[in-house]
């Protein structure tokens, strides 16, 4: 029972192979097996969004995904991959400039939701921006500065940054 599973994924643009029990949460594979500790665990129950990453273009919470369900060749983007993209760097700078982070614990997940939203290149509005972050809880900022940071980044979003 429960043999180890091997997967090769493209994580933040790099090919990585990893072996794990298939029921292991993607969060644990990222943090413990691959030492990508930028992704955080808050609740472990899908409520807080601190563990948010992008898998094959889809925004997911990695605490609720059995890593064995992620197929070979999948493209995964974590907070560590942000700075490799123009849009990601823009977002980071915007979060900093607007003072959008306080304790910072929610930010690795929050900013993945921001990146996912903006990189889709769809029309934006304040309600859309807010709703896109509804799955991310922040206990510090009251969200206003985060919304400002996202709106500011949206204005200068690089045209080339299509799908994540």
């Amino acid at each position, binding site marked *: 029972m429960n043999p180890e*599973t091997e997967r090769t994924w493209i994580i933040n643009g790099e090919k990585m192979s990893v072996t794990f029990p*298939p029921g292991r949460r993607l969060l644990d594979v990222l943090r413990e097996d691959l030492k990508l500790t930028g992704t955080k665990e808050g609740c472990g129950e899908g409520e807080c*969004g601190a563990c948010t990453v992008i898998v094959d273009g889809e925004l997911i919470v990695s605490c609720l995904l*059995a890593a064995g369900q992620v197929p070979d060749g999948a493209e995964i983007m974590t907070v560590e991959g942000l700075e490799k993209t123009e849009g990601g760097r823009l977002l980071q700078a915007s979060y900093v400039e607007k003072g959008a982070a306080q304790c910072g614990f929610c930010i690795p997940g929050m900013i993945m939701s921001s990146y996912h939203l903006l990189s889709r290149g769809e029309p934006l509005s304040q309600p859309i921006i807010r709703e896109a972050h509804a799955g991310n809880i922040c206990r510090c900022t009251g969200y206003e500065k985060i919304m400002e940071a996202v709106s500011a980044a949206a204005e200068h979003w690089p045209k080339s940054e299509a799908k994540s």
Partner: protein
Amino acid sequence: MSVSLRCVEASDLLLPGSLPEALAMMAEPEPPTPLAGGTDLMVQCEAGARKPPARLLSLKQLPELKGIDEADDTIRIGAGATHWQIRNHADVKVGLPGLVEAVSMVGGRQIQTMGTIGGSLANGSPAGDIAPYLLIADAVVEVASIEGTRQIPIRNFLIDYRKIDLKPNELIVAVTCKVLPEGAKEGWRKLGPRAAQAISKIMGNYRGKIVDGVIESFAVSLGSVAPTAIRLPEVEAFLVGKPLSEETIAEAERLASASVKPISDIRSTAEYRKWVAGRLVRGFLTSFTKGNEGSEGSEGCES
């Protein structure tokens, strides 16, 4: 770093490539537990509310569960369709607008991307936001095993508290809903502590048609007031053929409050839920007099 076993880490994971292959695995003497988006199952296992199954059968990769197809006056939604896919599907937007509203309120973006309609149904929670809609859309649940397929009307599928008409060797394959008839209107309302990521205190859906001020048809369902989501047959029978007047609305409100037998729990009291059941029905009927489109929407409301 020392690693403790989390959630379903000790479980085996089966990854069938097709539905027939999955059904063959489900036919084994000790069938595996289906795993779709994991937004209920993983949470229950992590929280210790459920023993991690020895074997999980992943449904995510099955092509047969993914489609959404329109035919005549119905839309068939594969059990593996996610809330996000349903919400953005062109035919569903037109034919089942109340479903779009209901799935739009499930969790945040991540949960909508992961969670499936099949998982919502199989989870069988009386607080689920999808079953009440399926009741007013006269949905039929399609379940399959290696022995064949069964088509079960949603009313019969929801048996009791967390009890559904699904055998251990069966999978939910699809849900087929009747599209909103010409000239009819449907809407929805959820009351919870806040808009996103909150379990409902009470929620309801309606689908009705009113011609020249007379109620031609009216279906209404409520969630979180009984062990399963329910229709309100007494209210519906009373309304058909009546003029849409204040007297009619007041009597429907009274009947709705009287006909539900909710419980008190951590999220709300029985008295509050009875009262709100009546108010929801009043609101649904009043929306016709105002002539506004579609849904009443969601409301944060503390009890």
